[in-house]
């Protein structure tokens, strides 16, 4: 009678130890295998090929796919009712920050400058700055946001892109998906989804702090689009075109998100 009892104790103790060993083995093996797999996956992503230069460039292929997928997801939240916060004019910076003049660093031939609008019919509108200034003016004091991470409250004035479209009868063009804008020398160019371009706070600006825009800031006409990072706010607009395909975009070619929406 007492014999089996003597046996049970070491047996249970051994059984417990066996179970401890078994569970340790399973969990640590799983942990190691998953850890190695995760590291392998990371190395694969980190060394994944760079996309071939097209409309976008310079990004790792899987990361570009992720940027485009994230764009699709966050586009669902876009609304013309979502407005950038505006401020009183007194809060606008007197010294307006400027990062680059790519595409707008040559001498400006103000007298001969025309805004070229390429219609889908093939017709090209040549619009003078005075024609644009004759349209209803919109002032906007908002927090300009650079992709680098800085922001500054700035005061811009000009015509709403949607008012501009209205006046020049560009409704057929707005049925397309994208707007492309370029500097006259084609040194800088941006592509914008139509919804963002038609947002009520997107303006073709000719004034900064109530005065004509200085040359380094994009005279005579520049884009101010608060639903995008600064990289999309093209200076010295030369041509505007429309397309169902993404127009080429200066910074998207250099690894940045095409959408760059805020």
């Amino acid at each position: 009678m007492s014999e089996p009892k003597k046996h049970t104790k070491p047996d249970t103790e051994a059984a417990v130890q066996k179970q401890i060993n078994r569970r340790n083995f399973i969990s640590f093996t799983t942990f190691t295998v998953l850890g190695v797999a995760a590291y392998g996956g990371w190395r694969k992503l980190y060394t994944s090929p760079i996309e071939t230069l097209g409309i976008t460039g310079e990004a790792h292929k899987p990361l570009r796919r992720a940027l485009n997928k994230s764009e699709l997801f966050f586009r669902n939240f876009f609304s013309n009712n979502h407005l950038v916060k505006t401020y009183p004019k007194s809060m606008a910076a007197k010294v307006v920050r400027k990062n680059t003049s790519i595409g707008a660093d040559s001498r400006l031939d103000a007298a001969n400058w025309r805004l070229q609008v390429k219609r889908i019919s093939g017709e090209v509108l040549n619009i003078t700055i005075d024609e644009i200034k004759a349209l209803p003016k919109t002032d906007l004091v908002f927090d300009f946001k650079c992709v680098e991470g800085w922001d500054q409250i700035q005061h811009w004035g000009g015509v709403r892109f949607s008012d501009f479209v209205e006046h020049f009868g560009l409704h057929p063009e707005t049925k397309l998906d994208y707007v492309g804008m370029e500097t006259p020398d084609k040194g800088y160019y941006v592509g914008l989804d139509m919804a963002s371009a038609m947002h009520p706070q997107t303006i073709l600006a000719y004034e900064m702090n109530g005065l004509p825009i200085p040359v380094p800031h994009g005279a005579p006409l520049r884009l101010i689009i608060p639903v995008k990072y600064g990289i999309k706010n093209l200076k010295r607009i030369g041509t505007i075109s429309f397309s169902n395909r993404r127009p080429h975009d200066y910074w998207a070619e250099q690894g940045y998100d095409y959408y760059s929406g805020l």
Partner: protein
Amino acid sequence: MKTIKEKHSLVMRWTHWVNFPILTVMIWSGMLIYWANDEYKITIFGHTYVRFFPDWFYNLLHIPARLAEGMAFHFLFMWFFTLNGIFYVGYTIISGAWRELVPQKKSWKEAWLVLLHDLHIRKMAPPQNKYNAAQRIAYTAIIVMGIGSVITGLAIYKPVQFYYLTWLCGGYHFARIIHFALTLGYVFFFVVHVVQVIIAGWNNFRSVISGFEVVNEKPKTATKE
């Protein structure tokens, strides 16, 4: 006699270890982004004590001039970070595991006693279950911080579409500061956490991988037999 005492659920262990590399990538890619406008420093009475970050630090980690790459990584891994967090928080709420985690009324007082004990000032630690009072506060805080990172992150990622979040975070500029400060918090947490885990020893560490601890129970069972 040795017995197995269940400690951590599989979901807790899974999300813990999945979070670790994801958060590492988020912090690293965050630094690639931050470098492009590295304006934060700690200045007291006109003297700058810490500048985030010194050049040797950037160069050591190959941070400079990788903004676009940083954003691309950041905006992929943000999904994993958020989904993993939702999974953990959802599980913790539904399973009732939050009862062992969230600070209780007495935790705030007890946490002091735990601290004094850990610093070898006090001999006795207050009795505890799964987590002691200081752990309850720290581990709950880190979850709240994680939620804070997602909210401040969204506030600076889409400040126009999610304007209410940006407003909630005190504006775009301030949201970016909070987002950065929370990251410093993770690094601080990590250092303390690792030291504590080392001090706590193997049995404790093993429980976050295997799920159980081994405890020596008085052989009461023998008399029952």
